[in-house]
């Protein structure tokens, strides 16, 4: 994989900042930063589904919940985090296939409805199956993982663990997008019928992109449970799923770093605007509407828009000049 020099420099700078950041932060700040990383993983997965494959998935928080509950339940039963996480990821992947299959046979946006309903069903499950999920009381005292005798119990250690997992999963996704598979995802989004005529199996690929997205949410959930130590149904509701979608869209769906920016806007910014809590979300929602009208490509598309605009004015100028001659 080749990166431009500029890109590489920015990436190194960003990673260095993330590596140094904890020394500048207090406990709560560190917790938020770790939570941001968790959200980034989830949003990266959703970006594959929404941004690259063009599908609307509205149960991303639900999948994250499945991941979190799976890890929490398995760890309570004495299974190691390192074994529970792959189980969580695979479970989300399989659930993604099960829910995506019927919807995708019909129409792309039916997936939106199916996933919306599925999130509701997951919430009912988390809330009602007390024997398994603890119901509204949730599951408490979820331990943080250990590896070869080294404990990630400290906030700092856990932060670095989350950082490493985030970077690895982002790199995996970048690799996937560069592969023929990734090209097929983009082809699907841009023109499904042409993609089909060039031999891409539409249903299989759309289903795959959805299931992989769900698997990323599962991984995010697996980190979320030990991060907060206590899980209950509330953070995995429909509202959170909508927020995930907004993160991807606001950052710039189909842009690799879109989710990073989007989740910062949806998670970090409100923390500094606490006094505006509910109003923040109201403004955020309306801002998304405004954005779809004027800047449907998301914040990261501003630069392209500007370049396009410049190119256009330049060509207009040449055109007028030519006309004058």
């Amino acid at each position, binding site marked *: 994989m080749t990166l431009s020099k500029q890109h590489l420099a920015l990436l190194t700078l960003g990673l260095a900042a993330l590596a140094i950041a904890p020394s500048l932060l207090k406990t709560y700040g560190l917790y938020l930063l770790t939570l941001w990383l968790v959200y980034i993983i989830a949003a990266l997965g959703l970006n594959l589904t929404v941004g690259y494959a063009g599908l609307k998935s509205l149960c991303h928080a639900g999948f994250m919940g499945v991941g979190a509950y799976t890890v929490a339940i398995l760890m309570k039963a004495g299974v190691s985090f390192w074994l529970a996480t792959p189980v969580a990821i695979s479970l989300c992947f399989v659930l993604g296939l099960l829910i995506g299959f019927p919807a995708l046979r019909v129409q792309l946006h039916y997936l939106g409805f199916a996933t919306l*309903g599925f999130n509701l069903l997951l919430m009912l499950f988390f809330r*009602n199956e007390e024997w398994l999920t603890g119901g509204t009381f949730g599951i408490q005292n979820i331990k943080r993982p250990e590896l070869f005798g080294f404990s990630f119990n400290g906030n700092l250690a856990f932060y670095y663990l989350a950082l490493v997992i985030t970077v690895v999963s982002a790199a995996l996704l970048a690799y996937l997008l560069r592969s023929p598979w990734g090209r097929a995802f983009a082809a699907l989004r841009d023109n499904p019928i042409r993609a089909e005529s060039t031999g891409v199996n539409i249903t299989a690929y759309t289903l795959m992109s959805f299931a992989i997205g769900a698997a990323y949410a599962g991984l995010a959930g697996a980190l979320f449970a030990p991060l907060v130590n206590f899980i209950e149904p509330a953070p995995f509701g429909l509202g959170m799923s909508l927020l995930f979608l907004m993160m991807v869209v606001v950052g710039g769906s189909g842009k690799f770093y879109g989710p990073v920016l989007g989740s910062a806007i949806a998670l970090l910014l409100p923390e500094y605007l606490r006094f505006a809590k*509910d109003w923040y*979300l109201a*403004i955020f929602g309306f801002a998304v509407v405004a954005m*779809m*009208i004027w800047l449907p490509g998301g914040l990261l598309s501003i630069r392209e828009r500007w370049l396009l605009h410049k190119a256009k004015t330049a060509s207009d100028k040449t055109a007028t000049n030519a006309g004058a001659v």
Partner: protein
Amino acid sequence: MTDFLQLLISGIATGSIYAMAALGFTLLWQASGTINFAQGEFVMLPAFSMLIAMAMGLPLWAAFVVALIVSVLVLGMAFKRFIVDPMRASGVISIVVATLGLSIGLKSFVKAGYSAEPHPFPSVFGDEVFKLAGVTISYSDVGALLFAGLMVLGLQLFLNKTLTGRAMQAVAQNTFSAEALGINVKRMIFYTFAINAILVTVTALLITPTYLAKFDMGDNIGLKAFFAAIIGGFNNSRGALLGGVIVGVLENLVGAYITPSYKDGVALALFLAVILVKPDGLLGTPAERKV
């Protein structure tokens, strides 16, 4: 048996309320290709406008009239003019995301600006019940059923028998030919948005007494409306009625005889079953795929 009948009747009543929201949803989709993911919030807003109007001392009927006017202006005219129209060019996906954003925006706006608590809401038909052959029936169920039934039938008549209604259907079927035939497409699309605004206001009037007025009441209603619309057939307005009633009745039966915990999952299960077997919905006709 009496239990069963009771469940059946109240199920049909609730279902016909879902059907109204579903019908508005279907009409918007047919006429303008708008998938309105904020349909649930479109039911929530009139409920709160009625509450506010009543808090200012108006009786329920006057509050309803006020809410109707506000809805047609805001959820009909402004929604079309400022959100849907500018996005016509960018396609369905943008509208989906925008209406999802709108849904978050409206919910949080009401939560922050009015209240996060559920508020009781008076029933138009009172709380009394009567007995018929041993079956206890509430006036509000009968009222809801009649009201919703009349609305849906009236709309059917309007769409099929009047010139405006036929023109609206023509626009829904093929915008280009409709325009070529001299139909004022823009006006017909506006009528559709206005009708949707009226439908959601009536839905709010009928359902809020049971759901209570709360900022997130739309989540559930919106979901039931989508599912009812698809189960019945997305491109058929009678389908919405059928879908709504099926969802309402089955929810009641599952809630009573199987498990009350998963009552709200019934609509999803039905939806998945229907699209597996008959992807265009029970009354729908296969839609041609647009390239």
